[in-house]
């Protein structure tokens, strides 16, 4: 499984909370640029193996704390690739390629150490038996290449700004790896800020990024990216991320956090109710700035 978004940007966190409530477990995660999406699932003990390249909520948690604890305690299977490698593997998956030859990771610890050895990999049928293979470039014999396997994704979950019931999506600004995930995965679930009609979204097809034929389900979840940022809509919730960081310092505090913000609410609507309307209004992006600024700041800037 893989999530769209980038660390603290457009992460499908309402969907992650729902996975936690529904009880799915033994997940095999293709992390990509991860933040509290995979950190929450790891902290709740739902992840069997985590194929990772970067896990942090930058400037809030410079290393995601439950991810760090799980690796330090040895309670999770993990593998490290570079972000370049994981992005390339997602793109190759979207293209349906059998493998990709690259020069990434050569000479580094990611070449020398395998987080998951071949025997371990053979026990997990969702994973390829090798982390990679080394081969000479058949066209340039003196060039050493690393052949990356291409992941087969069962499920991708993406949070879009705008989608219509037939699955057509409009991702505003940087789409990150999300379009690749949608094309690659057997099932792609989209959560969206705004659900619009199939007819309306087709009025400007040049703004659309994911065709509905690659999407299995659309869920209308306004603020479904909270506490991450959603471009054009809202900023990150700094206080929430700081609270999350504090909660991550111990398993007890983290389980308490999950109890309060995940298991203690019935659904996303109740989560929003608990956050409160004024808190959400304080996150709203200001057009022209592209992020949240206070009325005072705008007035001050304009008076200069």
């Amino acid at each position: 499984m893989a999530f769209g978004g980038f660390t603290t940007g457009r992460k499908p966190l309402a969907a992650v909370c729902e996975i936690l409530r529904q009880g799915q477990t033994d997940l095999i995660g293709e992390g990509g640029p991860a933040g509290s999406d995979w950190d929450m699932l790891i902290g709740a003990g739902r992840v069997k193996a985590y194929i990772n390249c970067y896990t942090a909520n930058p400037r809030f948690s410079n290393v995601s704390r439950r991810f760090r604890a799980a690796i330090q305690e040895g309670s999770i299977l993990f593998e490290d690739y570079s972000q370049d490698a994981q992005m390339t593997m997602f793109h190759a998956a979207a293209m349906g390629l059998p493998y990709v030859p690259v020069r990434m990771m050569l000479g580094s610890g990611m070449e020398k150490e395998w987080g998951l050895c071949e025997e371990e990999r053979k026990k997990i049928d969702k994973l390829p038996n090798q982390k990679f293979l080394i081969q000479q470039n058949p066209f340039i014999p003196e060039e050493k290449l690393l052949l990356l396997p291409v992941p087969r994704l069962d499920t991708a979950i993406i949070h879009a700004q705008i989608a219509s019931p037939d699955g057509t999506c409009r991702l505003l600004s940087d789409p990150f790896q999300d379009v690749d995930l949608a094309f690659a995965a057997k099932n792609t679930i989209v959560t969206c800020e705004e659900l619009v009609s199939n007819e309306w979204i087709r009025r400007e097809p040049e703004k659309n990024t994911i065709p509905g034929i690659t999407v299995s389900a659309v869920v209308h979840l306004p603020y479904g990216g909270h506490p991450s940022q959603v471009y054009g809509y809202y900023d990150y919730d700094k206080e929430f991320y700081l609270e999350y960081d504090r909660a991550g310092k111990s398993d007890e505090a983290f389980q308490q956090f999950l109890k309060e913000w995940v298991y203690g609410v019935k659904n996303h609507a109740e989560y929003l109710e608990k956050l409160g309307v004024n808190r959400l209004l304080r996150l709203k992006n200001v057009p022209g700035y592209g992020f949240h600024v206070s009325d005072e700041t705008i007035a001050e800037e304009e008076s200069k």
Partner: protein
Amino acid sequence: MSESYTHGEMQAYTIARLIKKDQVVIVGTGLPLVGAILAKKRLQPTCRLIVESGLMDFNPKEIPRSVSDNRSMAHCAVACPPIRYLGYQANALLNHNDHLIGFIGGAAVDIYGNVSATSIGDYHHPKVRFPGSGGANGIASFVNTVIVMPHEKRRFVNEMPYITSPGWLDGPDGRKKGGLPTDRGPQVVVSNLGVMKFDTKTKKMYLWGYYPFTSPEEIAENTGFSMDLSQAKVLPEPDEDTVRFLREKIDPDHLYL
């Protein structure tokens, strides 16, 4: 001498001064971002900042926290997907484009500029785990880099069991043996105590410059390997205007400074 700037401001200014006219600068977060924004807005306005999330030529109004921050997204030329950034990085090498410079950080660096950002201790059962490579491995593999690192003995290490971002690996032939391009690699290390470069022959780190508030001796004391100090000179300080600009315009909330 009384200093009219903080140590962080000196470091950010030093970083900014490393950026040359028309350079394309790969930057992440932290002090490199502060330095790069200073370069873009004041010292080298023709430089172009790019990030691994795919944002091309950004110039934020407010300092971003992450490489995918709305603050960079809202004020950039093109918001490409990350694979386009990777393609740009790879083609800059293939096309012998020397305009590119990348800033990377991490947990520790050794004398050959190899950087660790994965873990300390045994990789499988680490004493301390870090976030992982992110884009740093690719930048270090294919782009000339500036490494930014707090200067402590435990971070400037003699041995590097797990290399996340390859520097010159084990010496002059290291990158060739490893399968990496030999005409790219770490160029400079900027710490809170001084600036190090790499000897063209041995590829070993040597002290190139120190700040008015540090000394080569202090730097040697905080370095876990022995380093040539003989070529070190004192580095220029930021002027009052630059310090005010850093404080009032770039990082007024002290996110990084």
